């Protein structure tokens, strides 16, 4: 028996969400999705846009990949193919969503849609889909894990974006400006997030 099974539905959902967002923050604790984070976090609005896009895609693809895994890969005994299948599913999903957003709302497309091609092969998203298989989650719990992981990434990049916007105005030594100081900032923030670890065990 896992501890999750004893809890009520809502509390297990919340617990998984919080632990995925904070104690297991995908960007700060696992250092996944770093490349797009470094590239796009220069300004707060673009950080928020990319963060939201990632959150949406991680949640949706975690659910989608959960179904693919449980109802296609497991019955066919093809669990070892999960890596490649997940990549393809995520890529197709982001492309599809980009098309739909472009057609439905130009405003949404300009603020969110242009980031979708960027995250087609984002390792954070793939990472969340793969990590969720390590735990005996139900479908909704897997969705909570995806949503929480995405929210954690969103939170991290939004914070980094805010700090970078301020730091760009400061007089930095030449060698430290740009990616250098950003990595230092992320390192210090990661220390703070590591402080959460062990608080929740699931």
């Amino acid at each position, binding site marked *: 028996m896992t501890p999750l099974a004893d809890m009520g539905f809502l509390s297990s959902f919340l617990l998984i969400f919080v632990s995925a967002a904070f104690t297991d923050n995908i960007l700060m604790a696992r250092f996944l999705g770093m490349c797009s984070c470094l590239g796009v976090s220069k300004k707060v609005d673009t950080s928020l846009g990319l963060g939201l896009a990632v959150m949406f895609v991680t949640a949706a693809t975690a659910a989608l990949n959960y179904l693919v895994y449980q109802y296609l890969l497991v019955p066919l005994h093809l669990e070892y193919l999960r890596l490649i299948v997940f990549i393809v599913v995520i890529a197709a999903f982001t492309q599809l969503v980009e098309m739909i957003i472009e*057609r439905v709302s130009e405003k949404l497309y300009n603020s969110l849609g242009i980031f979708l091609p960027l995250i087609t092969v984002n390792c954070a998203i793939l990472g969340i889909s793969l990590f969720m298989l390590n735990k005996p989650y139900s479908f909704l719990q897997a969705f909570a894990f995806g949503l929480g992981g995405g929210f954690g990434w969103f939170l991290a990049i939004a914070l980094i974006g805010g700090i970078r916007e301020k730091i760009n105005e400061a007089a930095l030594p030449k060698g430290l400006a740009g990616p250098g100081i950003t990595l230092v900032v992320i390192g210090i923030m990661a220390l703070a997030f590591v402080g959460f670890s062990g608080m929740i065990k699931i």
Partner: protein
Amino acid sequence: MLVSILISVGFLLACGLVLAGLLVLAEKKILNYGTCHVDVNAGRKVLDVEGGSSLLSSLAEQNIFIPSACGGRGSCAYCKLKVQEGGGMVGPVEEPYLSPEERQDHVRLACQVKVRRDLKIEIPDELFSVSRFRAKLLHKKPLTHDIVELRLQLLEPDSISFEAGQYVQLESAEYKGRESVMRGYSISSVPSDNQHLELIIRRVPDGICTTWVFDHLKEGAEVLFSGPYGFFHLSDTQAPIICIAGGSGMAPIWAIVRDMKEKGIARPTTYFFGALTQRDLFFLDEFRKLEQECPWFKFVPALSKEPADSGWTGERGLITDVVSRHFPDTSKHEAYLCGSPGMIDASVAVLTKNGMPEANVFYDKFA
């Protein structure tokens, strides 16, 4: 064992096919905008275009050629035009290129506006006179180790009318998996020779178009280009002129100076030709000859990286320093510049520091 291999391969195949099919279907269904009407200059021309691609390429398909040096990547900002209706929101790519006034005037970058519905646009009238030419390459002459001169014989239309200083967009053919692109090059021939066109092109390492010109384009081959574009031309004042251009940037200056000679315009003109070493110089004899024929013209080649012990007796140093030495006071002059953005910015800084109003500096930036 074999069965499991077959199952896994079959599953992956099916997975890929289903998803790819879904995407193809979605693209057809979701991104189908049908035919859109583009109204140019308040009814002067109404075009029916297939929706879904950029305004720049849709207009090019309809034989309206908006200037664009970067080929639609949103980095040169040459393809600005007014979209009065139907352009949608300003995208994040074009934002940095539009001033607040331009935003108010509905100016957009044609390469970033997607045709999704009926549009009302405004373009400068002279763009209607831009056409697409078919020409034959008469010769390709190396001028230095990395610069060639192309001479084209116009086939269809068989003549071109332009002002010295304007440029054309050369279309490269496809080669070795590189797609066809359009790149802007200044015309170096004079307008009076209206059945021919000359271009001076410098090799850009790994450049799609210049690699094509240097390695794949053969004499006698057919070449496509559109033009003429640009507002770089001689003003009609009487102010003395300073020209600064290095390398292939010489092209428009070479055209303008010879055009002045033909038209009998005798404004005092000094041309500073900046290069690294002696092997980067070309057309020295031609310019010396021009100097003898035209008392109003002075040619100053300057080398910045020439070894100190060589036989070079001309000017040495950065072109901006040389200009500053010759013209400590530039308040009465006009300047014509052509070259890389870095060289232009540096030249503008020196010229304005020596007293030239910024409005008297004219330039063509080629990145």
